[in-house]
């Protein structure tokens, strides 16, 4: 009784969809995308070079930002044309109306290398994409720590070092913003709300395919002289830099577009595609976190794109918005950047908290404590995050009289953050706790974030900020909140949902080894950095005081061990999925959430045979007489499975 809803919506497409053509290598895929990208780059670079021949600034510097931009912009267009992503918009221009069913039933592994409209395929693409980006940026972090083994001896040339720092920061910040929304928001949330599809599958697919090209462009900066401005790209330093800075602008900008697409889709999906009975008061907290995240992205990211765009103009068209010598101001960049930049860190935190609040009740066998408070916490974080950006600029000399106000708003944000602790602690109270790998990671988030949150009080307090601003203290603080928060939650979520996504069970033993090594070495890496910062070491330096050498070496060695722990994860994860492949039991964690009640693992095309009717709240773990979560729950299959963890 699977219906063909695409006819009804009128937005579906057959001929416009990728994969509609013939087979073989010319069928749109990542290969044709790369071919398109190469052709586009050659064309764009040639055009850019040819019309800037006589530009004085180009001749003097021997570097041509316009050709760089033209090359990359054409490359992006070529990439999407090659992927087949442009077919549909072009066909729409000629009024070709979609008639047939969307091709989400494609089988085989090759679909993961195509522009596809199936939200589950996109989720898996995102998962592996994010892991690649995370590991690349993680290796760059190890390169930084290698340099800091010695206060005076230099492994890298200082220019290479500062470029590595910038690449690490930018890649982590821009890519990891989608680390939960991309894989789990796209894959799991539609299942959780009982939908057969997402609202805008093309936007969703587009959002993923922005990321590989953005990753490539950003990384390509390293072999073009890099950018020395760090991920914050403060002007006028970023105006002064060579062509490497253009890769920062384009890479970051593309990732911004990706986030806008992804959040538009997730917001529209959660609002409109909830199954009958999935009222707002029954929406899983993960849904609330994604909704808050989506709205925050929609309202903050255009400002980032504005900032990057203005910087690009200053670098190519020689406007002077960011250069005070010609009527601009470097404060403009700081404002535009941090107006995005502070919501950005909550874009990282909110989904992490969403995962925590979602997964803990499953392993506590208790209803989530203070459900409404958790939703209020996400919304509060989202709203307050727009009113704190100047706390990055306490020492900048900009609007100094506003500092008490921004100190207040910044400290107010610990109230919604506190809600998340209240929810977690209340849920654990009188619970029946199973310390499985996902649960350990979620508890790890609480452990780590506590340090991040407490040191947040130091950095938000203006008098203390005088000492800690721009030091390793701040750096340790945000690694505790971001890596200790969202990245731990991300790994926990991987262990939690891999059985659903792949149909294979991951080893609890290996998972626990990963967890314990990761949390120990994570803390051993970042806890000493608070001391390093307080003792006077600024961020992004390659020389430091001799008295800090022991601490820095301790940190570097811990960082290698942390890297080893993550490598252990990468190897065991891929090995278990590709080689050993132990099939999972049904609903291995005993969750009540809707995604586990699909027909098979991985879920079939269109998720559900028929739209489920939601009968109860997904967190009714405490009430043995509660109705099952939806009418698709199969008594024999689901309610008494054997062999669960």
């Amino acid at each position: 009784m699977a219906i063909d809803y695409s006819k009804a919506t009128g937005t579906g497409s057959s001929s416009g969809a990728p994969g509609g053509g013939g087979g073989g290598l010319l069928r749109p895929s990542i290969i044709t995308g790369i071919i398109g990208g190469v052709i586009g780059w050659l064309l764009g670079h040639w055009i850019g070079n040819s019309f800037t021949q006589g530009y004085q600034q180009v001749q003097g510097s021997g570097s041509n930002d316009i050709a760089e931009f033209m090359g990359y912009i054409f490359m992006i267009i070529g990439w999407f044309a090659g992927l087949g992503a442009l077919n549909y918009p072009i066909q729409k221009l000629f009024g070709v109306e979609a008639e047939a069913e969307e091709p989400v039933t494609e089988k085989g592994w090759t679909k993961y290398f195509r522009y596809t409209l199936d939200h589950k395929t996109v989720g898996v693409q995102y998962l592996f994409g994010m892991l690649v980006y995370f590991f690349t940026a993680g290796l760059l972090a190890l390169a930084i720590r290698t340099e800091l083994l010695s206060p005076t001896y230099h492994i890298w040339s200082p220019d290479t070092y500062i470029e590595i720092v910038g690449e690490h920061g930018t890649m982590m910040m821009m890519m990891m913003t989608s680390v939960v929304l991309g894989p789990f928001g796209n894959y799991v949330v539609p299942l959780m709300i009982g939908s057969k599809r997402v609202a805008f599958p093309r936007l969703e697919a587009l959002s993923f395919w922005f990321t590989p090209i953005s990753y490539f462009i950003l990384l390509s900066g390293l072999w073009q002289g890099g950018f020395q401005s760090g991920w914050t790209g403060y002007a006028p330093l970023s105006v002064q830099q060579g062509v490497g800075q253009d890769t920062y602008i384009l890479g970051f900008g593309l990732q911004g577009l990706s986030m806008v697409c992804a959040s538009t889709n997730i917001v529209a999906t959660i609002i409109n595609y909830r199954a009958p009975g999935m009222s707002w008061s029954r929406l899983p907290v993960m849904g609330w976190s994604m909704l808050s995240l989506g709205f925050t992205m929609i309202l903050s990211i255009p400002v980032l794109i504005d900032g990057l765009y203005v910087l690009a103009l200053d670098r190519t068209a020689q406007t002077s918005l960011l250069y005070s010598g010609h009527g601009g101001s470097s404060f403009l960049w700081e404002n535009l950047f941090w107006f995005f930049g502070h919501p950005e860190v909550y874009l990282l935190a909110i989904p992490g908290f969403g995962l925590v609040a979602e997964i803990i009740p499953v392993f506590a066998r208790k209803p989530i404590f203070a459900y409404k408070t958790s939703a209020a916490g996400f919304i509060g974080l989202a709203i307050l995050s727009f009113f704190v950006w100047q706390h990055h600029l306490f020492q900048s000399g900009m609007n100094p009289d506003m500092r008490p106000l921004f100190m207040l708003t910044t400290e107010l944000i610990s109230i919604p953050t506190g809600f998340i602790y209240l929810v977690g602690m209340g849920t654990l109270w009188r619970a029946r706790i199973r310390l499985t790998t996902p649960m350990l990671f979620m508890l790890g988030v609480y452990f780590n974030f506590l340090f991040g949150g407490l040191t947040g009080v130091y950095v938000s307090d203006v008098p203390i900020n005088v000492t800690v601003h721009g030091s390793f203290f701040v750096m340790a603080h945000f690694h505790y909140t971001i890596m200790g928060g969202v990245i731990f939650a991300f790994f926990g979520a991987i262990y939690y949902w891999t059985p659903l996504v792949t149909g294979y069970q991951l080893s609890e033993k290996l998972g626990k080894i990963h967890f314990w090594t990761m949390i120990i070495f994570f803390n051993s890496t970042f806890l000493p950095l608070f001391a390093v910062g307080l003792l006077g070491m600024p961020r992004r330096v390659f020389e430091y005081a001799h008295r800090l050498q022991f601490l820095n070496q301790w940190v570097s060695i811990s960082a290698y061990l942390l890297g080893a722990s993550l490598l252990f994860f990468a190897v065991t994860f891929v090995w278990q999925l590709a080689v050993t492949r132990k099939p999972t039991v049904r609903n291995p964690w005993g969750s009540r959430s809707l995604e586990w009640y699909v027909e098979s693992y991985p879920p079939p095309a269109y998720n559900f045979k028929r739209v489920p009717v939601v009968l109860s709240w997904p967190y009714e773990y405490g009430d043995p007489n509660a109705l099952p979560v939806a009418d698709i729950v199969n008594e024999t299959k689901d309610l008494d499975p054997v062999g669960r963890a």
Partner: protein
Amino acid sequence: MSKGARAAFVVVGFAIALALVVYGVVGWLLHKPPTISAQPSSTPGVVNVTMQVDGAVGTGPHPSWVGYRVQNASGQWIQTTIIQLPAHSDVHFTVYQYDSGSGFRNPVWDQVAGTVGGVAYLNGKSATYFNDQVGNGIGHSFNVPALGINVPFAGVNGNASNFCNAGPCTMSQLHNTITFDIKTGNPGMYRWQCFVPCGLGFLNGNGGPMTTVGYMGGFLKVVA
């Protein structure tokens, strides 16, 4: 696909990833300009460093950038800014300055500092400071913050017929000769840079060659 084949794929995949990382690190990131040692002189305890500053280095990935060349033991001009010096000894610098000049962004760098006697010799004439607003201005400067050294190199006339357009420049081309002596202290890496905004086409003249080691900034590597 059999289990063995899948295992082989995984192993090969990780091997490729590892190879890519090693290639990236060794092939790109570890790249540094070469180190040139100071040359012994006829006076015991004194070593010589001979450098030239070119308005355009003429070679490498950025031929139009300004840059330093240092003479090695066999008399070749090597484009680099990393110079190895012995500790606790006198170093006699001879700099052939082939570039035209401009002003400093901050004229405080007109002052000669940190050299033996607080002086530098421009074409044989001693001076304690050089005014960047007169004549051909200052072409480049040699500034070692940790040793307190600052020596401006006066510029040459950029419109002269024998102006050197691309390095390595030769003695027959228009140049200024600047000499000065410094005393090295304890072993260590002492970074140095130029303070003239000579990164042409970059904002404030401080991009490009100014931000790339091997052109307008580098290290004095003082070894025991």
